[in-house]
């Protein structure tokens, strides 16, 4: 699926540094090859949540959003700000996951990861709308931050960029024209 896009990345239309960044990302995060580190984060639970936020068909994409997210969180790779009513990012992630799992166990008698997708979505809907009844954490802010982080990891993957038909990396030496319906024959289209 990626072959055409991989050829584009390796072509002269893409800058040296950009090519390096994209290939590194594919290699480092591909095939689940993210370094396994002790994060204190329940990655299985995080994976179950992320699978509902960014559902993908089996075999689609080869990176594990939850693993990347957990290691970013472990590295305290902040984005320059947080909502003042939230604890520090990593603490917030851990606490929110625990509260979500507690909800599942309390209301459904099973861990979040063990629920059917519909049951998982019902819980997440309440968290997203702030109707989760959490007192220790602003549920909406937690959900929004997690969703934003997962989305960033997802979209920055070359496999996703290929699916979206994103050609913006391939402008060298310059775009011959810009404007509506000026797509060049070699530009990828969405799948």
């Amino acid at each position, binding site marked *: 699926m990626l072959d055409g896009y991989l050829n584009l990345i390796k072509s002269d239309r*893409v*800058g040296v*540094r*950009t090519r*390096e*960044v*994209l290939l590194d*990302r594919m290699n480092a995060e591909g095939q689940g090859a993210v370094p396994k580190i002790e994060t204190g984060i329940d990655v299985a639970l995080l994976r179950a949540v992320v699978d*509902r*936020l*960014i*559902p*993908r068909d089996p075999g689609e994409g080869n990176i594990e959003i939850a693993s990347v997210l957990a290691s970013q969180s472990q590295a305290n790779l*902040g*984005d*320059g*700000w*947080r*909502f*003042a*009513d939230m604890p520090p990012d990593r603490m917030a992630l851990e606490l929110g996951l625990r509260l979500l799992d507690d909800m599942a166990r309390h209301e459904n008698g099973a861990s979040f990861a063990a629920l059917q997708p519909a049951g998982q*979505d019902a819980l*997440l809907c309440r968290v*997203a709308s702030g109707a989760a009844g959490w007192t220790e954490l602003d549920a909406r802010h937690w959900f*929004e931050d997690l*969703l*934003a982080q997962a*989305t*960033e990891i*997802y*979209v*920055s993957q070359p496999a*996703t*960029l290929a*699916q*979206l*038909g*994103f*050609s*913006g*990396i391939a*402008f*060298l*030496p*310059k*775009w011959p*024209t*810009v*404007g*509506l*319906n*000026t*797509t060049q024959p070699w*530009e990828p*289209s*969405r799948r």
Partner: protein
Amino acid sequence: MGAVAAVTCEMRRYSSDDRVDAIVIGTGAGGAPVLARLAQAGLSVVALEAGRWWNPPRDYAQDEVAQRELYWLDERLSAGADPTAFGKNNSGCGVGGSTLHYGAFAPRPDPRDLCIFSEFGIGRDWPLDLSELLPYLQEAEHFLGVSGPSSYPWDPGRSYALPPLSLNGPAQLMERGCAKVGIRTSPAPLLTLSQAYSQTEYGDRPPCVQCGFCHQGCFNGSKSTMDVTYVPLAVKSGAEIRPECFAHGFEWDRQGRISGVLYRHRGNDVLQRCRAVFLCAGAIETPRLLLHAGIANSSGQVGKNFMAHVATQVWGTFDEEVRPYKGFPASLISEDTVRPKDADFAGGYLMQSLGIVPVTWAVQAARGRLLWGRPLVDYLRNLNHVAGIGINGECFASPANFLELSDELDGRGFRKPIIHFTLGDNEKKLRNHADRQMREIWSAAGGSDLWTCERTAHVIGTCRMGTDPTEAVVDPYGQSFDVPNLWISDNSTFPSALPANPALTIIALALRSANCFLRRLRGAA
């Protein structure tokens, strides 16, 4: 040899025991022009910059994640009913400051907005009018290189030296929608070169190749950032730039004047002696440093009057292939809404077409629409068919909106800033008006699945200028009322937000401030 290497190998260097004429803290739109001006006047000047000195052709990727270090990433805490986002939303880090990632949208301030109180009875008049700023705006435009129309619809006498950049997909759609609803548009004035441009002070710069990654750093120097314009001029004129130096304190003489600046470089504290300081660290770090040091605040106004532009966007999906990431992101402007006829609020806003790169767009859609699961993944497949319009809307100071130091410490051991921000009644009415207006334009242009992204942008106003020392931190030229050899040059001195994007105004104020500093220095000598 790269551009940076060429600049640095011939750079003059001062010893920390040299008592330099001035230290400039920050090398963005507020600091770099001051640095150049003072060095050109023959003063010994050193700039302290918290971030790195990037080598764009080598270091920059056309990738949003890889370029994250251009943003100020030290954590800030955002509070209030409408907390404003930091990180990639505003402050920059590196030689060039936030101009490294700014949108380079370069309207001049509207003369009416500088006397907003006189017109509407709310907000604050600026202690200067546009005629005083105009020569500096024109000087900056000429030096930096601005592309734009040969005749500007809202200021018929104005023209730009370089022809406009091509309109990209979103700009063409906005132009079409605006024509149908009777709103005038124009190719935007942009601090980016549509043709090669030279100034003897910095040499040749190539034209924009329309890659669309302006917010991730311009790899070829066609965007008029400080690191390819005022910084090389400053270095050529004898200034020293010290990257990766975070200023965090001051040393004093017996007369209550600053005699040195304390900064941290790779874990070591260094004291540089000086005769004067220009604090140009932006509307968050400038008041943060003053509050941390406990100085220049007899007015009690340091950190107060925090403002952010109402920066609402409306996105739509179109039948045409838009590819919104190609071409200069915001290449069309309308100033018809600077004073809308049917407004129920004071002031106004300007509109711009919006191109966008994929991660930024996806995260905005996720946060702004709260889309998740299959609806999110499905919506993102529309990337090649979406376009946006956004505004910069006026914002007034309010007692509810301010910066203070939290009790939480950052990695260096200094207190993190906490910023309180809640939209006032005027901002909400303006936002609602703009939302209706932009939806009307997108509907007329054939857009479907419209959605509104609520946001605020730019950080403004935490050390405001004025004529009354009990109400302002600095005088109308940027000199501190309390510490005579301390000057502030950045967006913190703005008394109101002004709808115009701040960079060009900051640069013009900086040049004016530097001239006044030199005048007063000579007067005292």
